[in-house]
């Protein structure tokens, strides 16, 4: 039987892809054709639904294609296809377990497509996909649904935050976690929340609440998911931000290429796109940093949360979580305690059991203990722990690593609560700087230098050092009592005051034509009351007339704490170090009166910021002790890790040969086989798509091609040689290039 010839129109029509194309071009004219396919779809759907599990591959294929077609053009015929989204949802809900994988994927994809075409809204899409995500046994379907859910949430939050949708989904997730605390289904809630937090789609308190509930669940996986979120969610968010801004385009290179390559619309477009991207990145760089609170700060009722977490997972002896996971939970609890200065007294007595060198991962426990200490913890609660650490870890008989870790952890605790130490114990520990092991020595010295600053009375006189002794004598270094807080103030206000006075003196000196000196100062004091200069308004608006009177009143009432903006302390360093010179000066003279007597203008604040920065640079250059710098550098948000505790033990240890070899190899080209450096360079060049350098080409040039020139060179006359040399010099002056118009 010969092949039957098809009519041209029929041949083209007989495929759904071209029909789809035509429908999209001209929906009105092809309404009838679409309706035919809609009916065919309906028939296929019924065939499929009558026996979903035993449908033949032929039927599946047809159904798949029709679903695809209709999803692509459904937005053009809203009246005819009104029931279509419901069909798909029903199909997915009822038969997702038996659907053929390809068809299943197509149905999910079609639903997402309908969402993109705004035929259905996000809420209905997500509420369809979500129950399937948590109930389906198929891994591929789960990963598909997860990806689609995340991308849809991102998409609908891309232009502006879709609060309504977010609220709905967050409520769904919250219910999922709280409804059945023993099931693993809560995993999906934690995964979705974590991903959206990482992408900064969600950054408010509600997702933190979901994670909080996850932490308080009974299922180990869910709990760990929640705990990891609090411990590492913010870090991963920052990393993700860095990553996404990292892929910048080399504009110079693109420009260069566009000058060389053939000009085409595509290349032009690519160039414009690159420029756009660079501009966008520049804008992003100059834009103010979005205010993102860390998850730990957004927690509602941290005290209750930490207590519950501690009681449920740690104190409860029936809990069967693995040690690693328990440590994670412990880290979270102690982080919360340290960050929010919570009080959980039973936590410290709970620690006692674990503070022996034989305990697995004991450094993590020590780090957690240090983390859980803050200046509002009663010293009575910590003292026994410090004594226990000293007894168990620090002795001549114990291994040097153990002793170093013990002393270091005591130091970490003492940084946060110096009152936890007794005199005899400290003096005993400080004596370990006579040890033979470098790690132990360093740890003991660290402890000593800490106490030189915070509580020198506890040290023996010979270990106090010069500064601490002098400070003690002059009364500058002073022991703080339990619970004592710094009096708040504006940081660096005295710098501003000083600056202003200097400026005033300068102005006066200029006006009077007098050199700046004693006389000028006197004048300044005299004139201080009556005169203000018009240009001073730019910097400060000191109402000097009233200022004199006010000063008297304020300086009399020492205990009267002025109402002013609270200093933002706590984020920088614990406030136990108050040996700052400025503070002492301020305290001696009474607190700076500038902020009480005048209103600071924006210009003032700018200047203040600048002065503060300068002061900090000064301190960083060496006017400040190492300890304080360390305290400032360490952000309280980061917490203490086991590595911090183990650090001194690694000092003075010789590295192994492998480590040294790895260190030497670092940053050098890889040599899988024996090869010369030249060959490696060449292969690298080739991998980049480049051939060879000009130098290499010159070197490889055929001898016969160069020999003529070389021979001619030897036969040149003197003038020719001079000319050539002159040209060479001239060439090197203007860029080393031969121009077309250059004389031969």
């Amino acid at each position, binding site marked *: 039987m010969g092949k039957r010839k098809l009519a041209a*129109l029929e041949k083209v029509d007989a495929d759904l892809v071209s029909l789809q194309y035509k429908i999209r071009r001209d929906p009105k004219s092809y309404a*009838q054709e679409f309706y035919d*396919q809609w009916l065919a779809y309906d*028939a*296929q759907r*019924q065939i499929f639904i009558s026996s979903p599990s035993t449908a033949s591959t*032929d039927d599946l294929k*047809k159904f798949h294609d029709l679903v695809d077609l209709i999803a692509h053009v459904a937005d053009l*015929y809203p009246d005819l296809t009104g029931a279509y989204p419901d069909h798909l949802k029903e199909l997915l809900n009822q038969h997702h377990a038996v659907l053929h994988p390809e068809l299943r994927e197509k149905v999910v994809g079609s639903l997402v497509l309908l969402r993109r075409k705004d035929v259905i809204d996000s809420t209905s899409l997500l509420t369809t996909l979500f129950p399937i995500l948590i109930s389906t046994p198929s891994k591929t379907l789960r990963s598909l649904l997860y990806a689609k859910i995340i991308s849809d949430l991102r998409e609908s939050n891309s232009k502006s935050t879709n609060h309504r949708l977010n609220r709905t989904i967050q409520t769904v997730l919250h219910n999922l976690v709280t409804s059945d605390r023993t099931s693993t289904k809560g995993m999906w809630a934690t995964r979705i929340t974590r991903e959206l937090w990482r992408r900064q789609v969600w950054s408010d308190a509600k997702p933190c609440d979901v994670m909080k509930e996850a932490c308080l669940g009974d299922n180990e996986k869910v709990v760990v998911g929640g705990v990891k979120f609090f411990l590492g969610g913010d870090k991963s968010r920052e990393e993700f931000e860095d990553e996404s801004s990292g892929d910048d385009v080399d504009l110079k290179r693109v420009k260069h290429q566009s000058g060389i390559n053939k000009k085409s619309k595509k290349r032009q477009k690519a160039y414009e796109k690159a420029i756009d991207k660079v501009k966008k990145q520049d804008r992003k760089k100059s834009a103010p940093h979005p205010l993102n609170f860390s998850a730990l700060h957004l927690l509602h009722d941290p005290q209750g949360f930490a207590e519950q977490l501690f009681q449920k997972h740690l104190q409860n002896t029936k809990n069967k979580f693995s040690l690693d996971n328990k440590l994670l939970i412990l880290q979270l609890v102690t982080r919360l305690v340290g960050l929010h200065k919570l009080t959980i007294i039973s936590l410290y007595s709970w620690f006692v059991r674990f503070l022996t060198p034989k305990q697995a991962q004991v450094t993590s426990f020590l780090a957690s203990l240090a983390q859980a200490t803050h200046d509002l913890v009663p010293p009575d609660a910590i003292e026994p722990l410090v004594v226990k650490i000293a007894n168990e870890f620090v002795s001549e008989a114990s291994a040097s690593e153990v002793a170093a870790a013990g002393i270091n952890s005591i130091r970490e605790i003492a940084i946060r609560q110096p009152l936890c130490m007794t005199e005899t114990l400290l003096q005993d520990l400080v004596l370990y700087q006579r040890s033979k092991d470098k790690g132990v020595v360093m740890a003991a010295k660290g402890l000593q230098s800490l106490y030189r600053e915070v509580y020198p009375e506890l040290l023996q006189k010979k270990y106090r050092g010069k500064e601490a002794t002098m400070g003690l004598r002059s009364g500058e270094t002073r022991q703080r009592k339990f619970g004592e807080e710094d009096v708040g103030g504006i940081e660096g206000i005295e710098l501003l005051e000083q600056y202003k006075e200097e400026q005033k003196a300068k102005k006066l000196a200029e006006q009077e034509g007098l050199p700046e000196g004693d006389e000028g100062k006197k004048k300044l004091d005299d004139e201080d009351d009556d005169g203000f200069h018009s240009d001073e308004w730019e910097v400060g608006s000191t109402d000097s007339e009233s200022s004199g009177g006010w000063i008297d009143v304020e300086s009399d009432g020492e205990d009267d704490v002025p109402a002013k903006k609270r200093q933002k302390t706590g984020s920088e360093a614990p406030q136990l170090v108050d040996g700052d010179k400025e503070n002492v000066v301020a305290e001696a003279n009474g607190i700076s009166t500038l902020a009480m007597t005048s209103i600071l203008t924006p210009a003032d604040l700018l200047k203040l910021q600048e002065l503060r920065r300068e002061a900090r640079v000064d301190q960083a250059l060496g006017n400040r002790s190492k300890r304080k710098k360390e305290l400032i550098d360490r952000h309280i948000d980061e917490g203490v890790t086991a590595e911090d505790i183990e650090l001194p033990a690694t000092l003075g240890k010789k590295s192994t040969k492998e480590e040294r070899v790895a260190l030497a190899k670092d940053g050098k080209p890889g040599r899988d086989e024996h090869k010369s450096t030249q060959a490696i360079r060449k292969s690298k060049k080739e991998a980049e798509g480049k051939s060879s350098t000009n130098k290499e080409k010159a070197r490889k040039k055929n001898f016969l091609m160069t020999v003529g020139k070389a021979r001619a060179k030897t036969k040149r006359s003197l003038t020719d040689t001079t000319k050539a040399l002159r040209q060479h010099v001239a060439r090197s002056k203007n860029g080393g290039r031969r121009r077309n118009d250059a004389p031969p």
Partner: protein
Amino acid sequence: MGSSNRKKKEKKKDFHKAKLKVGKANAKAANFTDTSFKSKSINVNQQTLEGDGSDSVEQFKQTLTTAATAKPDNLRRDALSYITTQVSAKPPNNPVGTASVLTKLLPLISDVSISVRAHLLRLFRVLPPSEVRPHVEKMLMYIRGGMTHLSADIRSDTLNAMEWLLDVAGDEVVSCPGGWLKTLNSFSSMLGWNPSVGSAMNSQGWTSGSKSTLGTKKGPEAQARQIQVLARFLQAGFQPETVAPYNPKAYWDNIYRLPATANPFAYLNLFGAPRDEDNEMYPDRISRQRVFDAKWRSSIVGGMEGAKKEGGTVGRAAALLDKALRGGLRDSAPLPAR
């Protein structure tokens, strides 16, 4: 120049003897086979089918599968003709039953090959009608799918299958769930007499011809045929029920005997999904007439009038349809005057 040089060199390389080096492994031979992989299963590319014909049941099943799934048209066609001869033999040799044959072969209604479709129809015709009747609903689904297929050839061939089905099970066709309204919907869409498309697009547009006659070579014939089959369908739907002779035992049979028909309580729809208007059963003539009046009468009559004016084969077919309508709706309401 450079590249051709390189190519020359590469060509030459084939004829050089490989240099052996101390401390290095020998070069792999050209026909070296890598056997270092592991696999859980082995796929054999070619397989032989062992069919010595001794087991006729197995052979029948094998052929059935071939007919349903084989890629080449010829194989499918030959398998179909084999099944046809087996089923039409005296006594018929059908070890798997009509139901399985239908389930396997129904998707072939919209097969791409014209000869396969022809052979399928031939096979349908030799199937025993009494065994086809219980499966009418399923067959109608495929037929409706074929009636609105993209390809005009498949559409017209599906009409043949429809005609056959009306012959063997006309009553069941019009009374099964979805059999009446959905099939009418497909017919009107096929003919382009559909009211819902125009309303969906908000405007009728000025080029809304009956699209079926456009483009195809035998347009008028195809349309005439569609109208003819529609007329037959309507005839089947409006056929007056034969009054069963009085049976004194019917009352008691109804109560105590097992029903003789398949799925006698289908109209209750106890187990299926809830049906909408289109999917509903219209088991008797009165209900069919009523719903036809409400939904389809105006558009079909309108389309018919247009077709009549066309004259020729289409006109003649339209006259047939007119007759069927008049006969069917005689007792419901008067048709509009000509």
